[in-house]
C-alpha cells in the first residue's frame, strides 16, 4: 500500500498538470472537450491524491518504519488514534493533506463552475487554475517534503509523536486550518480566471464572495480551536507559533477579513437602504458586543490574575485568596504514580474549599512519554487541572513531585470564559455581517 501511495502521488501530479494544460487550452481555443478532459484530470488527481493519503495513513497504522516520516512521528507504543493524527504532525504530512484538501475543494469548485458559470472560457480558466494550484502543492509534496522518502534501513521502532500534540484537538485543529487554506484556492482561481480575459459579472463576484466567506469561516473556527488548545496545553503555544500551517492560516484569515470588509463597504455604499440594513445593524451589534466583551475580559483577566507557587506536602493545606476576595484552601491528597505502556503519569489531586465550602477535586498530571528502548526523548508533558466558571478559571499546574511533596502553580484567572464567549460572538458577528443575502446571489 505504501508503494501504491507513492506511485499515486506522482500520477496525481501528472493528472493535475494535464488538467492545468488542457483546461487553459480549452479556454483559449473555445473547445469544450478539452475543458472536459482537463476537468476529468482534476477529478482523477483527487482520486490519486486520496490513494496517496491512504497509503501514508496505512504506513502509520501499520507501523511501517521503513519510511523516514513515519519513523520520526510515530512509534509502537503510540495509541492508534494518535497514530492517525501523526499523519499531519509534520511538514510532509501537512503538505500531503493540504494537497488532498485542495483536490477536494478544487474538484467541487470546478464542477460548480462548469455547471453554473455562463461564460465557458471563464469556467475553463477556473478549472485550469485549480489544476495549476493543485499541481504546485503536489510538486512541493513530491520534491521538497516527500512523506514516502525511505530510510537506508528499516527501524524496529519510531521516535514517537511529540507529547504536546497528543491531545484530542489534534484531530480537528490542523485539518481545519489546512481546509481553510485549501478553501482559499477556489476564490483565487475564480478571480484570476476572470482577470485572464472574460472579466467579472455580478453572479461571478457573488460566487467569489461566497467561497471567500466559506474559507474565512473555516479558518475562524480553526484559529479559535488553536487558541483554546494552546490555553489548555502549556508549552503548545510556542509550537503553534512556529507552525507554517498556523502562520499561513493566520495571514490568510487577515487577508480574507480585509477583502470581506472592503466588499461589504462597497456593497453598502452602492445599494439603497433595504431590509438588508436591519440584518447589518444586528450583525454590527453582535460584533461590537463581542469586541467589547473580548477587550474588557482580556484586560481584566490580565490585570486580575493571581498566581501562587506552592509547595505542598501530602495531606498539608495551602491557603490563597482569589481576585474576588474569596478565601481558598487546597489540601493535597498526595501524589500517585501510574506506569503505563509508553508513558509514566504522576498525578497530584487537591481538595479545594472556597470560603469554607468544599469544592470538587482538581487534579494536575505530569506525563513522561518513552520512545524506543524506554528512552525519554521528550521533556515531561504537563496536563493542567482546570475548573472553569463564568467568574474565573482555577488553573493548577504540577511542576514537580517527589519525597511526599508537590510543587504546584495555582492560578485564579478571572473572566477567561468571557474571553472565549467574546471571540465566538466576534466570529458569529462577522459571519452575519458578511453573509450575502439571497438577492445578491440571484443578481
Amino acid at each position, binding site marked *: *500500500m*505504501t*508503494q*501504491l501511495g507513492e*506511485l*499515486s502521488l506522482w*500520477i496525481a501530479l501528472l*493528472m493535475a498538470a*494535464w488538467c492545468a494544460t488542457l483546461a487553459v487550452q480549452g479556454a483559449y481555443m473555445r*473547445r469544450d*472537450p*478539452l475543458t*472536459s*478532459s482537463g476537468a*476529468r*484530470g482534476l477529478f*482523477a488527481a483527487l*482520486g*490519486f491524491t486520496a*490513494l496517496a493519503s491512504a497509503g501514508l495513513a496505512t504506513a502509520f497504522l501499520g507501523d511501517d518504519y521503513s519510511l523516514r516520516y513515519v519513523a520520526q512521528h510515530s512509534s509502537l507504543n503510540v495509541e492508534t488514534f494518535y497514530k492517525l493524527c501523526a499523519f499531519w504532525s509534520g511538514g510532509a504530512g501537512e503538505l500531503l493533506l493540504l494537497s488532498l484538501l485542495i483536490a477536494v475543494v478544487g474538484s467541487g469548485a470546478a464542477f460548480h463552475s462548469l455547471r453554473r458559470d455562463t461564460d465557458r472560457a471563464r469556467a475553463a480558466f477556473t478549472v485550469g487554475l485549480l489544476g495549476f494550484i493543485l499541481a504546485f502543492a503536489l510538486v512541493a509534496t513530491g520534491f521538497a517534503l516527500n512523506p514516502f522518502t525511505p530510510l537506508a534501513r528499516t527501524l524496529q521502532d519510531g521516535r514517537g509523536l511529540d507529547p504536546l500534540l497528543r491531545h484530542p484537538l489534534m484531530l480537528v485543529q490542523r485539518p481545519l486550518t489546512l481546509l481553510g487554506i485549501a478553501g482559499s484556492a477556489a476564490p483565487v482561481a475564480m478571480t484570476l480566471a476572470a482577470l485572464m480575459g472574460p472579466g467579472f459579472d455580478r453572479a461571478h463576484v457573488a460566487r467569489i464572495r461566497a467561497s471567500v466567506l466559506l474559507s474565512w469561516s473555516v479558518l475562524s473556527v480553526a484559529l479559535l480551536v488553536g487558541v483554546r488548545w494552546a490555553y489548555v496545553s502549556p508549552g503548545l503555544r510556542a509550537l503553534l507559533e512556529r507552525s507554517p500551517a498556523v502562520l499561513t492560516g493566520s495571514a490568510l484569515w487577515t487577508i480574507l477579513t480585509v477583502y470581506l470588509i472592503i466588499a461589504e463597504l462597497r456593497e453598502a455604499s452602492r445599494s439603497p437602504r433595504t431590509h438588508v440594513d436591519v440584518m447589518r445593524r444586528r450583525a454590527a451589534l453582535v460584533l461590537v458586543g463581542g469586541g467589547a466583551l473580548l477587550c474588557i475580559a482580556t484586560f481584566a483577566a490580565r490585570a486580575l490574575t493571581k498566581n501562587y507557587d506552592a509547595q505542598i506536602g501530602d495531606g498539608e493545606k495551602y491557603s490563597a485568596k482569589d481576585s474576588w476576595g474569596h478565601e481558598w484552601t487546597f489540601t493535597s491528597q498526595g501524589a500517585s504514580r501510574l506506569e503505563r505502556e509508553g508513558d509514566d503519569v504522576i498525578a497530584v489531586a487537591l481538595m479545594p474549599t472556597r470560603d469554607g465550602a468544599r469544592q470538587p477535586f482538581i487534579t494536575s498530571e505530569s506525563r513522561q512519554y518513552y520512545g524506543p528502548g524506554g528512552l525519554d526523548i521528550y521533556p515531561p508533558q504537563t496536563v493542567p487541572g482546570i475548573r472553569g466558571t463564568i467568574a474565573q478559571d482555577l488553573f493548577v499546574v504540577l511542576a514537580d513531585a517527589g519525597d511526599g511533596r508537590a510543587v504546584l502553580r495555582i492560578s485564579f484567572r478571572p473572566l477567561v470564559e468571557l474571553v472565549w464567549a467574546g471571540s465566538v460572538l466576534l466570529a458569529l458577528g462577522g459571519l452575519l455581517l458578511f453573509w450575502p443575502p439571497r438577492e445578491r446571489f440571484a443578481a
Partner: protein
Amino acid sequence: MTPLAIGALLAAAAMVWVIAPIFTEMPDEHAGGPAPSQAAEEAAEAAIREWREPKE
C-alpha cells in the same frame, strides 16, 4: 498482483477516462457562423438546381 501493477492499471484506466472527451468530440457543422435559415437553404438548393440544369 503487486502494488506497482495495480497503480499502473489504475493510471492507464484513469488516462483513458480523462482523454475520452477529446476523441468523442463531434465535428462542428456550423463552424464560422450561425446555422443557415430554412430560406437560405432553399435558395442555395435552387441555385444548385439552376446550375445543374441550365435554361436553354
